[in-house]
């Protein structure tokens, strides 16, 4: 059973897409740290691209020809994790029938990516610290140390410093890991990259679509842009993949988007009124709602008030009166579409 994964060649040429000032800085930092052997700590929510950053550092480093091995520390029971990392001798524990190499041997000359490093048990944290300091380790059940030549990149979706404050993560290991810290921001904080990412994933999925390419129309695109992406880039990638697979025409429209996204975006434009401690400005909310309807009706009617009034089920004179009242100002905008 091999719990860690080797980097397959398909991953190596993947780029970190984005033009946001933070992404440009991350790209610059990747180039710079790739040239060094420094330990890197990548933090960020799940799906933001931490592993992609790690892979890029490896691919641009002098170790690129060596292996890149990823291990998710949160997905493996503590007892197993130790032997995954350091290997074991025959008979080291029940079930250890043969000698087995660990990551620190297999990845020699390459890079180890330790994902969800915050989940590592305290005894293992000590052992990891030792490898980082002395470049040597001891396989489970062995009495001699082995030398290792690996670069370590760690990642965490938890704020590792908070884990240190809570006594769950060793402070010395924390500082040892974050020689170079890289924070990958959540997608909602770099929303302006969403259209680029949509096009990137669209192109990728379209290349595999025998029926020919699909496009995303403006309304669908703007709704994807407004969505908050709690699952970050991974969620966006999955959504685009689904949309392309399920598309039956050549255009993805807002109606095709997952209902959860549509509901979220609708909620942004038509906030559910709620009473806060300071109370709630009923008139303002009603006014804003009215505004939205009127603006939309005028847009659809191309500015024709008669037609807009019909869409709204109002008399033309009523609509005109409402428009005149709005022009007064007080926080409400001009209604000309």
């Amino acid at each position: 059973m091999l719990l860690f994964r080797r980097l397959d060649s398909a991953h190596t040429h993947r780029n970190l897409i984005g033009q946001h000032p933070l992404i440009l800085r991350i790209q610059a930092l990747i180039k710079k740290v790739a040239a060094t052997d420094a330990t890197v700590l990548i933090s960020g929510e799940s799906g933001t691209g931490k592993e992609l950053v790690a892979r890029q550092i490896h691919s641009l480093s002098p170790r690129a020809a060596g292996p890149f091995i990823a291990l998710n520390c949160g997905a493996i029971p503590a007892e197993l994790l130790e032997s995954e990392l350091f290997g074991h001798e025959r008979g080291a524990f029940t079930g250890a029938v043969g000698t087995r190499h660990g990551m620190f041997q297999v990845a020699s000359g390459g890079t180890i990516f330790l994902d969800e490093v915050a989940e590592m048990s305290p005894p293992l944290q000590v052992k990891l610290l030792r490898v980082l300091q002395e470049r040597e380790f001891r396989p489970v059940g062995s009495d001699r140390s082995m030398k290792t030549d690996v670069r370590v990149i760690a990642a965490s979706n938890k704020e590792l410093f908070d884990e240190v404050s809570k006594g769950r993560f060793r402070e010395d290991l924390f500082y040892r890991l974050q020689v170079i810290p890289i924070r990958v921001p959540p997608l909602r904080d770099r929303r302006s990259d969403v259209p680029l990412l949509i096009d990137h994933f669209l192109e990728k999925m379209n290349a595999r679509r025998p029926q020919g390419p699909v496009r995303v129309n403006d309304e669908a695109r703007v709704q994807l842009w407004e969505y908050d992406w709690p699952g970050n880039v991974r969620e966006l990638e999955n959504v685009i993949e689904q949309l392309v697979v399920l598309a039956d025409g050549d255009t993805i429209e807002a109606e095709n988007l997952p209902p959860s996204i549509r509901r979220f975006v609708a909620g942004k434009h038509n906030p559910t009124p709620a009473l806060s401690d300071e109370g709630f400005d009923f008139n303002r909310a009603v006014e804003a709602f009215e505004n939205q309807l009127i603006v939309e009706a005028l847009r659809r009617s191309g500015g024709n008030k008669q037609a807009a009034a019909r869409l709204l089920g109002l008399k033309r004179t009523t609509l005109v009166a409402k428009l005149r009242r709005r022009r007064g100002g007080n926080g409400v905008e001009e209604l000309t579409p």
Partner: protein
Amino acid sequence: MSENPSDESKNAPRRRARDPGTAAAAKPGNPRRPAADFGSVLVVDDNRDAVDILCRLLGTQHLHTIPAYGGSECLDIARSQPIDLILLDVSMPGMDGLAVCRELAKEERTRSIPIILVTARDDHETRVAGMRLGVSEFLTKPVNRAELLERVRGQLSARVLAREMDETIERTPQE
């Protein structure tokens, strides 16, 4: 600030943005240092009451606000002093919010200032224009205070992060 219950009824989960100035961030050794010099927010609306309300709201979070009552005033300020965020109305007489975005994008100095559009113009065209112009957020009037503050925090922490990354890039040895 009170929690607005309507946040919970939203369908997608949303995590709180990190606050660049919390007590936790002030602990020694924490890589998230408090950013005392952060938070110059330019608040732009042709309606003085709207500017007032927003400035007061941001003031409760100890953010430094600068009022501007029109598009060209906004540009003058953004070109002449350090601004970390612009809250920008769309419909304004003279130069409107979208034109302001276009002008800001033209100059190196103002290009990367994040913009939050705060507008009652909630139509398809304005949203698409905002997306194409690369604005950071699009909020609809009347704004939900909790949501506005969360978005402001998100954008300001991104600015803090950008500065920290500049330092990291600077001190990473070239080998």
